[in-house]
């Protein structure tokens, strides 16, 4: 009884909702040139441990929007040279600019709960979706997002300089092995 009342008292503490005013503002200078819309079915079969009776299954569908481009802020003076009506530019490596998994486009397609297992809570779903996001980010490396972004950036810069009156625009790309492979945006 004593234990129970102690337990009740400890659980009965008022749940305080944290008030936050946390933000960070950062100047960037990226030129986004490509947007990929990706779709994925997130599938989890929760068999649980041997001592948990029953299993649970969930299927969630989601979409991710990924933007890629180049960081103009990394262009140094020495990366651009002008000779008469010809301009030569060393293009910065392409990178992922933003990654967006719109909550509006996330749906629970199916759940199945057997035995003594409890239904999927919002917390469970949030954890499954976090794993799904990780998986999409990992698979992203296999796509040609960065190549596409680099190609489009090149086209933009050629037009941009031709608009300024240059007759010849030479764009050099960064070797692929010098690209930033960090996709955690």
């Amino acid at each position, binding site marked *: *009884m*004593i234990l129970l009342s102690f337990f009740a008292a400890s*659980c009965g503490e008022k*749940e305080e*909702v944290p008030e*936050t005013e946390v*933000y*960070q*503002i*950062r*100047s*960037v*200078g*990226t*030129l*986004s*040139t*490509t*947007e*990929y*819309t990706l*779709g*994925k*079915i*997130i*599938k*989890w*079969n*929760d068999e*649980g441990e041997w001592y*948990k009776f029953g299993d649970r299954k969930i299927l969630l569908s989601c979409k991710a929007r990924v933007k890629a481009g180049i960081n*103009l*802020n990394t*262009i140094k003076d020495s990366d*651009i040279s002008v000779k008469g009506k010809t301009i030569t530019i060393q293009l910065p490596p392409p990178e992922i600019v*933003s990654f967006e*998994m*719109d*909550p*509006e486009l*996330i749906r*629970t397609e199916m759940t199945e709960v057997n035995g*003594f*297992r409890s239904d999927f*809570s*919002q*917390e*469970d779903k*949030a954890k*499954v979706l976090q*794993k799904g996001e*990780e998986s999409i980010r990992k698979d992203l490396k*296999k*796509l040609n997002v960065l190549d*596409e972004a680099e190609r489009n950036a090149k086209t*933009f*810069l050629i037009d*941009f300089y031709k608009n*300024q*009156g240059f007759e010849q625009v030479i764009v050099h790309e960064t070797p692929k092995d010098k690209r930033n492979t960090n996709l955690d945006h």
Partner: protein
Amino acid sequence: MKLQKIKEIQTLIIRLAIIGLIAFAGYWVYQLFFKGSSGEDEIILDETPLKVEQIRSILELNTLKFQDEAVVDTVEYYKTGNEVLLGSLNKLIDPDQFKHGLKADGTKRRLTLIMKGELLYGVDLKRKDFQFISKPDSLIIVIPKPELLSVSLNPKGTEVYIENGDWQDYERLYLQRKARKKMIATGDRLKLPERAKAPLEKALRSLVRTDKKLIIKFEE
């Protein structure tokens, strides 16, 4: 007679303590063995393909990134004493809701999310293009005013802080929309579209090569 009464009280206390202990142990055994929720590390997803649905050429100059955090909350209270009693009993027999059933604050359901988001400001050049005006002594570039281009609210930045009672997906979505609105309002309050102008100018100046005086103007 007095000794007998003390003994009886002692026995009663011991029995009650044993019942309490059994209930407590039962709860924890259930939590340990039958509870459905799993830790993040236990989740191993089945392999499914990533489908490319659309590839689009875009042209956006992103000049300001704003990372914000918003707490969004929704609470429902019991309306009558009967509801309190029935609701609390229901929660007490559900191991996932047990701790909420012990509370006497009249909360029927509560969902609180802590959302981290990223807002990107800049110029969408697919909608509005640059204008180059070349004058004998100056080059004028007229560009559109920066605006909010995207809001990223991802699962990695979503924390379910309190989940008391059963909640549906559309109710969670309602809170996520609220968080999004809050972040956009904070961005507006901080005048971020205005503050995105300076880095936009800087990015353009790093690209343009001219002997003339470079003037960058924003569209009215």
